[in-house]
């Protein structure tokens, strides 16, 4: 039986259908999860998709964190369930304290949509095991509040523990400290990043197929487990 990967829809989620499509293209079954419904439907992994949950008023992800579904996502993630937060999903993960740091307004103070080159700093997570350490990938980036910030100690700790998962190459698009595009928790099951792997899964609509690696990684881990 194929892996079942849940995709949460909050009011204001935008890339939920795209994430579900990416899950299907990678060969798993996409299960939609509703923000107001605490039930995780027994999924094997969860994707928190991009968008503007609750309009992203106040702070991105700040209100979504309190959605009924999130308490179970938080508990399951602490128990080892693979969780991927993309863009707004990354912001929700930080607001929920599943990942350290926070995302603030881009230093260029504009929304930025472009194809972004990243370096995969570690293949040692549930969502990057199909990549090689140091591999360069090209996936779309699109956000207004993607500047990753944390205090020096946290940043040093992330670096020291090999928990910086992706770094922007060439031109940092949003002022993220130390060019950080994505990070993981200490177990490597929870990964958050600003760029959008789900938009790089078909040659017709994306700049590459590099996004597929995220989903194939988690699927092969689930099969092995």
């Amino acid at each position, binding site marked *: 039986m194929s892996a079942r990967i849940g995709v949460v829809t909050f009011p204001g989620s935008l890339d939920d259908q795209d994430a579900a499509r990416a899950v299907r293209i990678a060969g798993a079954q996409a299960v939609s999860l509703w923000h107001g419904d605490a039930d995780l439907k027994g999924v094997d992994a969860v994707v928190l998709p991009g*968008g503007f949950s609750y309009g992203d008023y106040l702070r991105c992800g700040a209100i979504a964190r309190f959605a009924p579904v999130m308490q179970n996502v938080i508990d399951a993630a602490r128990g080892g369930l693979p969780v991927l937060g993309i863009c707004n999903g990354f912001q929700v993960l930080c607001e929920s304290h599943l990942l350290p740091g926070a995302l603030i307004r881009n230093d260029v103070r504009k929304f930025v*949509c472009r194809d972004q080159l990243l370096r995969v700093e570690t293949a040692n997570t549930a969502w990057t095991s199909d990549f090689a350490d140091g591999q360069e990938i090209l996936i779309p980036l699109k956000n207004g509040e993607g500047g990753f910030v944390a205090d020096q100690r946290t940043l040093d700790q992330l670096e020291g523990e090999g928990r910086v998962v992706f770094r922007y190459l060439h031109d940092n698009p949003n002022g993220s400290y130390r060019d950080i595009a994505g990070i993981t928790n200490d177990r490597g099951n929870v990964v958050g990043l600003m760029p959008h792997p*789900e938009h790089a899964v078909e040659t017709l609509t994306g700049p590459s197929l590099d996004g597929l690696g995220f989903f194939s990684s988690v699927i092969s881990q689930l099969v092995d487990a």
Partner: protein
Amino acid sequence: MTRHVDTVKDAETTPETDQPYADLGLKSDEYQLIREHLDRRPTSSELAMYSVMWSEHCSYKSSKVHLRQFGEKVPAEAKDILLVGMGENAGVVDVGNDLAVTFKIESHNHPSYVEPYQGAATGIGGIVRDILTMGARPVAVMDPLRFGPADAPETHRVLPGIVAGIGGYGNCLGLPNIGGEVVFDPTYIGNPLVNALCVGVVPHDRIQLSAATGPGNHVVLFGAKTGGDGIGGVSVLASESFDDGDGSGGPNKRPSVQVGDPFAEKVLIEACQELFEQQLVVGIQDLGGAGISCATSEMASNGDSGMHVWLDRVPLRDSTLAPEEILMSESQERMCAVVAPAKLDAFMAVCRKWDVEAVVIGEVNDSGRLTIEWHGDQIVDVPPKTVAHDGPVYERPYARPIWQDALQADAPTKLSRPSSGDELRETLLSLLGSPNLASKSWVTDQYDRYVLGNTVLAQPEDSGIVRINEDGLGIAISTDGNGRYGKLDPYAGAQLALAEAYRNVATTGAKPLAVTNCLNFGSPEDSDVMWQFAETTRGLADACLQLGVPVTGGNVSFYNQTGETAILPTPVIGVLGVIDDVARRTPMAWDADGDSIWLLGETADEFGGSEWAHLRGHLGGLPPKVDLDRERLIAEIAVAASRDGLLTAAHDVSVGGLGVSLAEMALRSGKGARIFLPDGLDPFVALFAESAGRIVFVVPRSEEFRFTDMCTARGVPAARIGVVDSELGGLEVQGHFIVPIDEMRTTSEATFPALFD
């Protein structure tokens, strides 16, 4: 503070009361006409309704007589594809596979001048609701924009906010932005144009109309609460009925600016999709200009029914609003639906799921009248058609401007032309770096083009293409409108705008099907402007007939001027095309070394209204010659050659001429090419003339015979003008110059950041 509300009874008993109709923009004969319709004086609420519904913006009173042509000169193709024609919120076009597409352009020019961010944002919000109203799921937006000179302080005040507003709203709705325009001309300095296009997809059996039918059905208002937004002059009425001693609160504090809430609109879109899916509405209408007045009177009028409304049930954001103001409010993110009693609970459940407030504010009946009450008092009792559809119609005087001949006689022949290789090279670079032709990525990088995962082509391609079903069915859209051509000859200008949008759609491999338009002009009370308008509509209607693409709807924006100076006559034309398999779309970037570059069409010494002349501060002469038969033929070739797999790339030739088109292809692909200009043609003309009816095609050597056969069969001149060659690292125009891609890129990409960062 007590408030007396002017009731129908009051109107009957006090016929002589003075009413401030002039302050509301009504002429005295219009006011008399209202009295005739009602057989008494209107109540202040009725006066408010008539005044906005009979405004130029809502009633099309100056343009109607000209717009009629779109319904009269209808191409035969229309009956096969038009499921809903003009007159509804947006036209609906059949694209096969039981799917239909609805699209429309609307203007938000004046609000965007006052408050750029919110004006532009709510422009997107409004056009998206028009598409939603047809039962469709909106799938993409576009934004044709016009500004004053790129270096003018006024442009710096409005452009960044307008772009951020379009992005801020559209991105938050999750609608990919797949194209648009950014054009600069001094005439737009005090009056930027913000036109917004939305396109949506709807299964045939889910198309909705805005008619209130079925006596006993509920009228439900849902979405955002009503505030005092955009009620402008109507506050006069409200203040007259106030005993407004203290000056606190009340009409003087009404906001002139509407603030958009894209999140509210996003949940409204999702809620509506579920309502349509579960077939819970009988009729539906968005609330835009003229708010509740418009929605209730139009729905009742369209349904040939009557309607009763309890206005005091409208959820308010500001409890001090008077009934006249509630009727007029243009608060955003609201919709109105007619719902059968048996389906009301299910309707409300969907709204609750999406946290959308919904309230029954009225009931459909068979009285033939629209009646509105306010806390038990009857304040409106009118025949809905007189409000919504039987407004005044004007035959505004128009005449060919006395300056038109002199303008046309002033051809750009006296300007000195480049001739040496270096001069030609510099000319190309200056065009590539000019604000009208430079890279627009400073703008478009602020727009999400990826969301929904179906964007196959977006800017800077010739048209945007989105996939609309799992089998790869797609639609293509392009908008165009060259105001300079319009000024030189508005009849030809409209046809050139249509021809260019039509050609752009075909260039990407899609078959052009249908047209929408937004006609941006100065004051209709100026006979010069009215002549430009009349010529534009006549030109457009004639050209649509000849190209076989029906007009499905559109919008007119008058009074676009700075002081006495009208903007260039600017018809913005949108063409919709269909492509059966998006995988065969033709991109603009060439790829394989050795592929041949072909130019179809003919190049003449045509520089009137050109970008080259514009850069020298010159506008005069005649625009390029229009040949619609030729346009039709090259479009056929573009579509057929794509279908037969003969093309690797294509790009249309328009502003800036062939040189700019080739440079754009090289920039998009990152690979160079060697170009050989035809003998016997001045290289300057060959490179920079703006002759219409031309497309550059890139064809693998192996397909050249089939391709040239296709051109010969249609009698379209085709010339092999070059070959893709990545070794060159640039564009070489043989015998004249070579310019590296890096240099072109730096020139093209530096302009916007230098101006606006």
